[in-house]
């Protein structure tokens, strides 16, 4: 891997997932948000308004690209057309890093547009390691992979999710985007201790946290990303900033998106916890 791909991405603060509902407020109001995460596929279009907006955003804020369709765990061959487009976008955007999910999205040419689970086996690990290495060699940016929320687990699994992720980072040098809400959701659904997951992840590989809300159906939880962050997830966030921090963090709201002003207090809470645990980050009064 080149120096650029292998070097640890910088800490860039506390931000938001960029959503079209907030474009005007962001571009006209210049809100105090440290950075934005953009969904790569939203800008993998030929041109027009989306790219113009992104160009204006990146003039003012650092940007990270977050994809949903790399399908790194699929047994279907890597989609090199997709990766070529992604690389082209990255060349234009110059993101601090590129992320996607540790999951698969379809086989046989079908895209199910979901972040699908797989068994944590040695076979899957070998397969994904090879693909991550290929992708990292192809892209000229650091690659971070995100843990997904899952609802089913497989009889074939030989490793825990955190053991699988740890091995993956050791064998590929990839970075991790730790979705703190997803850790909570999966721990509830699969009945493991969320802190065991967090303590099982290498301290030096996490470059970003996602914070989000979820929907509780009593016997299982669904990662809806459509609500404020829940108390249990705030507690995990504290633990994560302590173990891995300081780590760049965003609120990832995907549905039921409120006005920007309503998200700002939640972002402030994320920032304040970050400052409380890592006081050196707090800007000094002049």
């Amino acid at each position, binding site marked *: 891997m080149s120096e650029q791909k292998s070097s640890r991405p910088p800490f860039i603060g506390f931000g938001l997932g960029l959503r079209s509902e907030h474009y005007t407020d962001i571009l006209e109001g210049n809100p105090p948000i440290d950075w934005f995460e953009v969904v790569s596929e939203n800008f993998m279009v030929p041109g027009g*308004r989306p790219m113009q907006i992104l160009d204006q955003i990146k003039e003012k804020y650092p940007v990270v690209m977050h994809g949903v369709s790399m399908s790194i765990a699929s047994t279907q061959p890597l989609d090199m057309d997709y990766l070529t487009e992604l690389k082209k976008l990255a060349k234009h955007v110059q993101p601090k890093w590129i992320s996607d999910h540790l999951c698969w999205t379809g086989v046989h040419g079908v895209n*199910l*547009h979901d972040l699908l689970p797989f068994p944590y086996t040695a076979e899957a690990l070998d397969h994904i390691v090879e693909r991550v290495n290929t992708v990292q060699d192809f892209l000229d940016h650091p690659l971070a992979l995100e843990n997904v929320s899952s609802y089913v687990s*497989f009889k074939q699994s030989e490793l825990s999710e955190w053991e699988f992720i740890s091995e993956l980072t050791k064998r590929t040098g990839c970075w991790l985007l730790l979705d703190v809400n997803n850790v909570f959701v999966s721990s509830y659904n699969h009945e493991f201790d969320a802190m065991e997951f967090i303590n099982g992840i290498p301290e030096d590989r996490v470059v970003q946290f996602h914070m989000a809300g979820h929907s509780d159906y009593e016997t299982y939880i669904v990662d809806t990303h459509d609500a404020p962050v829940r108390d249990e997830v705030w507690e995990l966030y504290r633990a994560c900033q302590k173990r891995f921090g300081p780590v760049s963090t965003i609120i990832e709201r995907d549905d039921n998106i409120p006005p920007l002003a309503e998200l700002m207090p939640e972002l402030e809470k994320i920032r304040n916890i970050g400052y409380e645990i890592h006081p050196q980050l707090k800007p000094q009064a002049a």
Partner: protein
Amino acid sequence: MSTLKEIQDKFQKSILQQDATVMDDIVDTSKEERAVLLNVYQHAYGARLIEFLENDFPKTLTYMGDENFENIAKDYYEVHPSDNPNARWFGRHFPQFLAKHPELINNPECGELAHLEYALGTAFDASNNKPLTREDFAQLSPEDWSTLGFKAHPSTTRLSLKTNASEIWSSLHKEEELVESKSKALIIEIISWRGDNMARFRTMSYDEAMIWDEANKGANFGQICEMLGTYWPSEEAPLKAAGYLQAWIASEFLISTA
């Protein structure tokens, strides 16, 4: 034991065809049965694809109503599962699917309304090719004009509507009382494009639509002047052609043929 590939094949089948064989590979939890947990994915699949269509065809959704739209959207994704990593292109067959759907045989305006919405979506994020300007044409020598060719900007789409779908679109857009659908005795010729960063459409007269279509099939300026002779006296045809060309340039419909 199933391999990763076998598990993914079975898992996908469970979502697309409600096939249950993957149930042998997944486990119950102490709180819930695996069938319920698997159903989270099965349910999310359809809901997500319907949402993509609702986002891309909001006026068609309003016009058809939630239930009707959803039922036909379900038929759509069974015939056209997504084959692209970008959800942006999932609905590309939807207008044609509506146009041919047996339940909409008496509502051709639904397919045409969806066609118009898709064309406007295309205009919104089409590539940023540099449009031809008046200055580009000013540099042409008089002898270049007769063989001058044309190329449409990627943001343009031509539609020939047999219903008043464009009027329905406008009434929905203005949130006015919905106009009643009707088939038109004469076709309504439409062009959509991106102008001043907005997706737009306007009607074209029959002669303008004809020469636009022919120009985009390769007819040069001399040939479209001749074609306009079928609508206008031959001495007026070049002037008409020049007038249309001027309007196309002003609206940034054209790009370089080079």
